């Protein structure tokens, strides 16, 4: 039965930085081998969530279960051996790779820290990993500054995967890269995930790459999840007004499609996470909000036949609800 138990279970996760309520009660699971896209705009708390999951941040309250064990409040010493099971890749590979270490040292570091193998077997493993991420064996002696942005991100991936984690958190791994390089890194993550079978929490603001890579998508707004659904369903039938607005705002690279879409332009900016609006946090920008939205917090609840999760008062239990504009869905 181990195959069906989730790799990651986030329960009521809260992370406050002083008065800033970055993550304010999130529940999310990731199944073995599943890619879950976590999308949201700057300030939504998505990166903080990723950093809490990998325990790069202390968690204020709640649970982070990795392979069944809650790591949210474990002391460092007890946490360290468990770190083999998960790892993270960051947005900017030039600032997340040590400039004074060679590629070989960078990629083998997790193996050394977890005392996996012998020096010889680790060297072998590095060669194998570099091959898996599409880098030639010669790069082992190079330093990060000698590599291109795309190559550096491949090194980051090799490092993150070297100890064979069951969960990879990828935080905007392609956002700092050029379009053509982005494509190769997205392809690579997809291929590695299929070959090695790790589960992945893929954090991004780019809906198109989520559509390409994820099986399930969670949408975050101001510290809370507002919608969680299967990829195809979310893109075909976005239910939460914020999800609809987000989908309609992302331009589709095709003039005929793009110019015939009706768009929802949100007014105002995301409110401050120091003092989030009462009720539904999106109500200040929501074009269809009613009185109830400004007072009662909508729970994230299953709706419709597929059991997609939506936190909106206006979405009915059968999954029907407000449609803000037509042509928002990018797939029918």
């Amino acid at each position: 039965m181990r195959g069906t138990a989730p790799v990651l279970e986030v329960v009521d996760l809260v992370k406050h930085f002083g008065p800033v309520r970055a993550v304010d009660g999130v529940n999310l699971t990731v199944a073995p081998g599943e890619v879950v896209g976590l999308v949201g705009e700057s300030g939504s708390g998505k990166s903080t969530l990723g950093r809490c999951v990998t325990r790069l941040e202390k968690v204020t309250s709640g649970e982070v279960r990795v392979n069944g064990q809650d790591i949210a409040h474990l002391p460092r010493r007890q946490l360290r051996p468990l770190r083999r099971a998960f790892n993270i890749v960051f947005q900017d590979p030039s600032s997340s790779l040590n400039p004074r270490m060679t590629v070989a040292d960078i990629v083998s570091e997790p193996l050394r820290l977890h005392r996996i193998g012998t020096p010889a077997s680790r060297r072998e493993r590095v060669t194998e990993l570099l091959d898996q991420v599409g880098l030639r064996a010669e790069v082992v002696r190079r330093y990060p500054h000698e590599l291109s942005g795309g190559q550096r991100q491949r090194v980051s991936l090799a490092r993150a995967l070297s100890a064979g984690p069951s969960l990879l958190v990828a935080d905007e791994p392609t956002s700092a890269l050029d379009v053509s390089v982005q494509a190769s890194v997205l392809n690579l993550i997809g291929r590695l995930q299929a070959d090695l079978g790790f589960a992945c929490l893929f954090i991004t603001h780019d809906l198109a790459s989520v559509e390409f890579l994820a099986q399930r998508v969670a949408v975050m707004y101001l510290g809370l999840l507002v919608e969680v659904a299967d990829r195809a369903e979310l893109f075909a039938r976005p239910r939460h007004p914020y999800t609809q607005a987000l989908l309609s705002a992302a331009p589709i690279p095709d003039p005929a499609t793009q110019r015939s879409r009706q768009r929802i332009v949100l007014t105002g900016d995301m409110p401050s996470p120091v003092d989030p609006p009462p009720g539904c946090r999106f109500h200040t920008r929501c074009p269809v909000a009613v009185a109830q939205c400004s007072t009662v917090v909508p729970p994230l609840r299953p709706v419709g036949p597929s059991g997609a999760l939506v936190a909106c008062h206006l979405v009915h239990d059968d999954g029907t609800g407000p449609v803000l504009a037509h042509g928002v869905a990018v797939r029918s």
Partner: protein
Amino acid sequence: MTQLLTVRELTVRFRTEDGPVFAVDAASFDVGHREVLAIVGESGCGKSVTAMALTGLLPANATITGSVTFDDVSLLGLGESSLRDVRGRDIAYVFQEPMTSLNPVLTVGRQIGEVLRRHQQMRGAAARRRAVELLELVGIPLPARRIGEYPHQLSGGMRQRVMIAMAVACRPRLLVADEPTTALDVTIQAGILDVLRNLRTEIGMAVLLITHDLGVVADIADRVVVMYAGRTIEEARADALFASPSHPYTRGLLDAVPNPARHAEGGLREIPGRVPILASSPDACTFVDRCAYGDDLCRSSRPTLAPGPAGHPVRCWHPLPVPAPAPAGERV
């Protein structure tokens, strides 16, 4: 009808410590009155340098040749003081990062007032009134209050609107917008693109849009110039470029973007290699080393920009044929 801006054989070379860099190689294009022309390409293709060269914004180690004609006036021959009159009054700029383009210690009203004083000799209450009008024009709520605020009090989207308000203060005929939405979230980006669209109608200006984002191009551009390694390699109306890209690089860019509307089977197309940094202008195609169709002709002879199979100009010895139209009903 004559063109608003005519650029012919614009060439920019930089002297650097690592030797000469050939940044722009004989670029020629026009911008019509009220037209939105997008220049697209990846980092290092020369698109920003082209934009800066138009009004002499490049550092002293740049050598510029060719001709730039704006409204029948040759700009490359003008002295610095005449160029200063042109900048802001006739041709205005908006850059990617509004926080570094705005002065952090001056209020928004003061910074807009500076433009009005410099070019229109407007002062005091009149300048203040005009500043409020301008903020209103770019969709900033409560403009009378906002003009007393400092840049750090504004969100990224609001700052970019302030930058646009400053740029259009003198009703320029041409707005050069260099990656104006790249640092912004998609819901904010949608608002900024709407502002640009409205301004074009309201004050009748043309826009030269520098971007790497094909979604933005699909949204707003009338015509597109694709640049690669300093050369313009394809030029077409936006719909024609997306429907029948003739240059393999253009095609590669389009296929590299995850696009839900034309979902690629079996992964995204990758373009191997990277944009070369050239010390001189080779008598060859600069894309040949990354191109699937490259042959001896491409290596030994510089392609000219000539009408291709789809009717629009392309710089390629082996331009791609016009794709067969998709059977009806197959498009999503």
